[in-house]
């Protein structure tokens, strides 16, 4: 891979998030985005005068708005500034952070504002997402954003009893985390004794994917301000450093040719390359927290193995021993993750934002105990796209 080291270090100096919810009738799109932008500027102690460039993104077609970056200028503050729009599906938020990281690292801009948003209640997600399928081979067969492929795979490998329990245990752990996060859209207050009932009675969607396993459709926005090392140190007492990021796309969206499915998933491929080039031999030991883009409990439970390069049932044991809960060996999604809120164009950025807040130690009620020196955040898109972003508390690698 043609990877080069960064030209200069990049730090996160400001983070803004709206509350995530199923309905934001009180604000239109630019007004909702402005809430996150204002929050990020206040967090950084900056004004729009300090921002050199704005990168903006969300899902294509989801709100049926053409060129939203242009008419959102009322809320983004991008008037008269260099600006880009990026849209890469579910990964959009991670792409925005990665692009801002590159723009600053390259030396093109000293301070970049990245904004991800979605108002899923305004649009029709399945109508938009069906467009990603190949019109010739797949569009008439697509099931929108829903799939039980992870459930099929897990049940085949571990048997229905253990696999279903692991997925539901993962789901309840995420809900317990979500209940501590004031920005959560969905926080039910689920408890362990509800597992059997939910596994049996939650409305079925596809195969063994049930409603309780699946993420929501949320409204919300996230904004992050990234600066060069020199600027970041002037602007902020404790910037969170973006050590490295990787962005990979190597699978087919709809797998019609089973034999061609890659043996190594995009997630595992991305993780392996990122750790290799940063000299990390034991990621489970190295990282203190992981914010994962987990669109369903089945996927979340399955992907732990790929992201930490584990073998066999090591990922299931982490779930079963509740080591992924706050206070455990590898806390996953102290924010509640995507199951707590999914404003898609913002979702992947929220993973980075939440991981960075954990590093700063000011995440709020869902701050995990202990010092967080090393964090990682993942992005996932329906187009089988993976982004991994590594964060560091200290500039010492």
């Amino acid at each position: 891979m043609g990877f080069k080291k960064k030209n200069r270090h990049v730090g996160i100096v400001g983070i803004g998030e709206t509350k995530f919810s199923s309905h934001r009738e009180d604000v239109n799109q630019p007004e909702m985005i402005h809430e996150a932008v204002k929050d990020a500027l206040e967090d950084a102690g900056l004004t729009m005068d300090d921002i050199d460039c704005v990168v903006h993104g969300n899902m294509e077609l989801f709100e049926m708005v053409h060129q939203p970056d242009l008419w959102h200028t009322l809320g983004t503050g991008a008037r008269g500034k260099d600006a880009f729009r990026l849209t890469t599906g579910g990964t959009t938020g991670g792409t925005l952070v990665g692009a801002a990281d590159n723009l600053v690292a390259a030396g093109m801009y000293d301070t970049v504002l990245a904004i991800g948003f979605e108002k899923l209640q305004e649009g029709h997600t399945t109508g938009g997402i069906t467009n990603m399928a190949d019109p010739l081979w797949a569009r008439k067969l697509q099931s929108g954003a829903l799939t039980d492929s992870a459930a099929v795979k897990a049940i085949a490998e571990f048997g229905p009893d253990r696999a279903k329990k692991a997925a539901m245990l993962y789901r309840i752990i995420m809900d317990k985390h979500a209940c501590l996060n004031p920005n959560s859209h969905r926080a039910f207050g689920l408890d362990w004794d509800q597992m059997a009932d939910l596994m049996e009675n939650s409305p079925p969607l596809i195969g063994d994917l049930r409603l309780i396993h699946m993420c929501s459709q949320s409204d919300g926005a996230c904004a992050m301000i990234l600066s060069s090392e020199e600027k970041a140190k002037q602007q902020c007492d404790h910037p969170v450093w973006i050590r490295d990021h990787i962005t990979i796309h190597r699978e087919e969206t709809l797998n019609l040719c089973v034999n061609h499915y890659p043996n190594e998933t995009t997630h595992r491929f991305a993780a392996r390359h990122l750790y290799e080039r940063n000299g990390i031999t034991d990621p489970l030991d190295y990282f203190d927290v992981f914010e994962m883009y987990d669109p369903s409990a089945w996927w979340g439970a399955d992907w732990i193995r790929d992201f930490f390069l584990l073998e066999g049932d090591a990922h299931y044991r982490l779930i079963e021993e509740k080591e992924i809960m706050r206070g455990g060996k590898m806390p996953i999604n102290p924010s509640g993750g995507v199951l707590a809120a999914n404003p898609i164009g913002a979702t992947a950025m929220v993973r980075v934002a939440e991981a960075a807040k954990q590093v700063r130690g000011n995440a709020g009620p869902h701050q995990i105990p202990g010092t967080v020196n090393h964090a990682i955040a993942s992005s996932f898109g329906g187009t089988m796209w993976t982004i991994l972003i590594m964060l560091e508390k200290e500039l010492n690698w």
Partner: protein
Amino acid sequence: MKNSEESDSYIIHGKLALPYTYFAGRTGSTFLTTLRDQRIIMGVKCTACNRVFVPPRQTCERCMADIRSQWVTVESQGKVVNHTVIRYQDKHLPRKPPFVLAMILLNGADTPMTHILEGVNPDRVVKGMEVAAVFSPATTNTLLDIDHFEPVAEPP
């Protein structure tokens, strides 16, 4: 006659339905309900920039001030600051061509709003022409509660 390579190439016809809603927000909703219920046109004033925005907005994009509560009523009469003539026909257009879309600076506003201008020969529209809003008899809860604008004085 088509060559065989072209005639054997299959074309798939599709159609996408993309329904959507749009949350107007409190600021946009206030504009629409006062237009509908009181037949008045309202804007918001940025006191820092001394600028009245019509239609209204929550934030001044010049200075980023929160201006959502600074409502002012503007006149339903103003001047044409620019215009164009739509001369082609298509399903999405609000009138049969030819018709005029004009940018109208209402008295008391600092930003022009775009609307349909009727009651004047499209070739006779001039900058500075005094025009007034004609409200729609039936509400649609949209900006089209102003049906169109028309000249105040008889055109020359």
